[in-house]
C-alpha cells in the first residue's frame, strides 16, 4: 500500500512529499494540506452559517432585539473572528476555483502546485486591505487617535 502511494524517487513532482519508512500513514504533499485546509475552512463556515441564520432571524422579533444582537458583531473581539471568517471563506473560494480547474481544465492537474501558490498570493493581496477596512474602526476606538 505504502509502495504505491509514495514512490521513493519522486515521480513528476513528488520530491517535496515526505514518507517515513515503515509508516503506512499517507503523508501527502502540499496538495494534501490544501485539501485539509479546504475541509477545515468549509466545516467552520458551515457552523457559522447555522449561527448567522439564527441571529438574522431576530429581525422577525423586533427592531430592538435585532439591533442588540447585531451589536455583538461590532464588538472588537467578534470583529476579529469575522476577519477569521472572511479569511476562511476566501481561501475556500479560491481553492474551490483551483479544484474546478484541476477537474475540468485539461492542464489543471499539471499546474495544481503553481495554482496553489497563485491562490495563496491572491489571498494575501486581498486580505491585507480587507483586514485594514474591517478592523480600522475598532483599532482606532481602542487605541484612540483623532476624534
Amino acid at each position, binding site marked *: 500500500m505504502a509502495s504505491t502511494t509514495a514512490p521513493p524517487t519522486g515521480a513528476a513532482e513528488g520530491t517535496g512529499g515526505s514518507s517515513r519508512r515503515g509508516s503506512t500513514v499517507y503523508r501527502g504533499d502540499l496538495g494534501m494540506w490544501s485539501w485539509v485546509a479546504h475541509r477545515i475552512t468549509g466545516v467552520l463556515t458551515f457552523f457559522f452559517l*447555522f449561527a448567522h441564520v439564527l441571529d438574522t432571524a431576530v429581525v422577525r422579533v423586533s427592531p430592538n432585539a435585532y439591533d442588540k444582537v447585531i451589536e455583538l458583531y461590532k464588538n472588537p473581539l467578534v470583529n476579529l473572528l469575522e476577519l477569521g471568517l472572511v479569511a476562511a471563506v476566501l481561501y475556500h473560494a479560491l481553492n474551490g476555483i483551483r479544484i474546478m480547474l484541476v477537474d475540468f481544465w485539461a492542464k489543471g492537474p499539471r499546474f495544481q502546485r503553481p495554482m496553489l501558490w497563485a491562490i495563496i498570493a491572491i489571498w494575501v493581496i486581498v486580505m491585507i486591505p480587507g483586514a485594514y477596512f474591517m478592523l480600522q474602526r475598532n483599532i482606532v476606538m481602542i487605541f484612540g487617535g483623532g476624534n
Partner: protein
Amino acid sequence: MSTLNISAPRSPRRPAARRSNFELYSWLFMRLSGLLLIVLVLGHLFIMNILDGGVHRINFAFVAGRWSSPFWQFWDLSMLWLAELHGGNGLRTVINDYARKDATRFWLKILLYVSMALILALGSFVIFTFDPNISG
C-alpha cells in the same frame, strides 16, 4: 474417447445492484453551487464587512432597506439555499469519512439533516415574511 462435458462457468443469477448516480450529482452540485456561491458569498461579505463602514452600519433599518428590494431578497434566498446545501453536503462527506461506527454515522447524519431543515425553513420564513413595520 468421450469428450469431457462441463457446463460453461457462470455466476448464479442475482438481481442487478441498484446503482444510483447520487454521488455523481452531488460531486457536480458542489462545483456548480460553489461557482455561484463565490459571487453570492464574496459579494455578501464585501458589502457587509468592508464596504462603507462595514459591520458598524448594520442595524434593523439597514436590513429593512435591503429587503425592500426583490433583488437582494432573491440574492439572500439563493445564497441561503445554495450555502446550506453545499455546506450540508460537505459535512455529509466529512461524516462519512470519519464516523467509525454505523450508529454514529447514522445519528450524526440525522442531526445534520435536522439542522439543515431547520435553517432552511427558518431562513426562508424570515426572508418571505419580513415586516419592516414590525412593532416592539
